[in-house]
């Protein structure tokens, strides 16, 4: 299987603060008019998201956990979001919706 690219680091397991977070290329995040919701689409399945989960996932564009929390806090004019965000991102990681990259 030398022709397949190596798997990204930490596709599952612990969320690390020194990694870049990216939304998984094997899933699609999309706004659904019919449901008035963001959804995650993957082979033969769909997860409906609440608005805050969707905002977090939209920011998984290669930035680090701290940068993501800072952006969210600025966007919603809030503070102390880190615990909630971390908790959700761990779920997202375990479900394969996001990936952690070392580079």
């Amino acid at each position, binding site marked *: 299987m030398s*022709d*397949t690219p190596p*798997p990204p680091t930490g596709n*599952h397991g612990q969320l690390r603060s020194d990694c870049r977070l990216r939304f998984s*290329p094997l899933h699609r995040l*999309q706004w659904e008019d019919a449901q008035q919701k963001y959804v995650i*689409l993957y*082979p*033969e399945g*769909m997860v409906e998201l609440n608005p805050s989960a969707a905002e977090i996932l939209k920011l998984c564009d290669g930035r680090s956990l701290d940068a993501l929390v800072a952006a969210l806090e600025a966007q919603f004019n809030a503070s102390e979001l880190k615990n909630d965000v971390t908790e959700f991102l761990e779920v997202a990681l375990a479900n394969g919706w996001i990936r952690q990259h070392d580079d």
Partner: protein
Amino acid sequence: MTKPRWLLAELTYRCPLQCPYCSNPLDYVAHSNELTTDEWKRVFSEARAMGAVQLGLSGGEPLIRPDLPELVQHARNLGYYSNLISSGYGLDEPKIVALKSAGLDHIQISIQSPEKTLNDFLAGTESFEHKKAVAHLIKRHGYPMVLCVVIHRQNIHQMREILDMAVELGADYLELANCQYYGWALLNRDQLLPTQAQFIEAEAIAQEYKTRMAGKMKIYYVVPDYYEDRPKACMNGWGTTFLTIAPDGQALPCHEARVLPGLNCPNVRDYSIQTIWEDSPAFNRFRGDAWMPEPCQSCPEKHKDFGGCRCQAYLMTGDMYATDPVCGLSADRAKIDAAIAAANKDHTAATSRPLVFRHSRNSKIFVEKSQSPH
């Protein structure tokens, strides 16, 4: 009334393979008047406007349709997540690339067995090495790769090898689909239904890999309902979620619904998707629970399994309203037990009937049978 979320487009009944467990209708050759490209596009657009978001492109073998990339492109423009459900036979790198650039989201291929001889025997065609090569290509081009293996008595003893093959091919998802007994599979049930002991052993192996591969490969295990005490929640409820369009444009609440007599499924050539979904007698026939007889009507579980599968009820009891005979509370459960006993009784090569393969010569025999008076 809920809206359709899933559109299953059976683009064609044509297929180069001949799987003896195929769920296509026995008389599929009689339904060869396929929808045109424009008709399919209209179906996709109308269903999407109602809220459908998952699109299954299946068949038969959908790759046989030369307009597949055009249909995929249309689906992508509409915002569908499109799933190509293929045997893998006939896929090559140029097609994989063309479909990717048209916007296809994922490809599912099916392998009959991890062992070449059995795979090629069940498929009725030499296809094993080609399918494995295709699996690698699917990965290389960045698609999520879903491997589907239909499980039955001819291959259930290979469960460990099946799982090892999926690992080796780098499948992101593995669907271990215990055979469901409709269409050609029902015809071949005596040769396909495993014993309970075989199921228990196979399930334990699948469970072991599920734990081991967590986070790397998702394993879906479709349970064999004959050995359950409760029926499956068929189609998540009739006319709630799924819309199947057959190659000839028949709109079906479930892809087996053609077998139900007098259901008169509407055709997309005659009606809009919205009219079909909301107003057709066929889609309303088993909506909700008013149609349910006892024991379902007064059963606390009726909103969990919806009384089970209408097609299985009809095929096993002759009454499409009956409680799914898989249910332990059904008066017809003995029919399932008898089928299990018959399949387990005697299947030595000398006495058992050979498998009936799914191909047009055999299908024509069923067309003739259904047309001649009994």
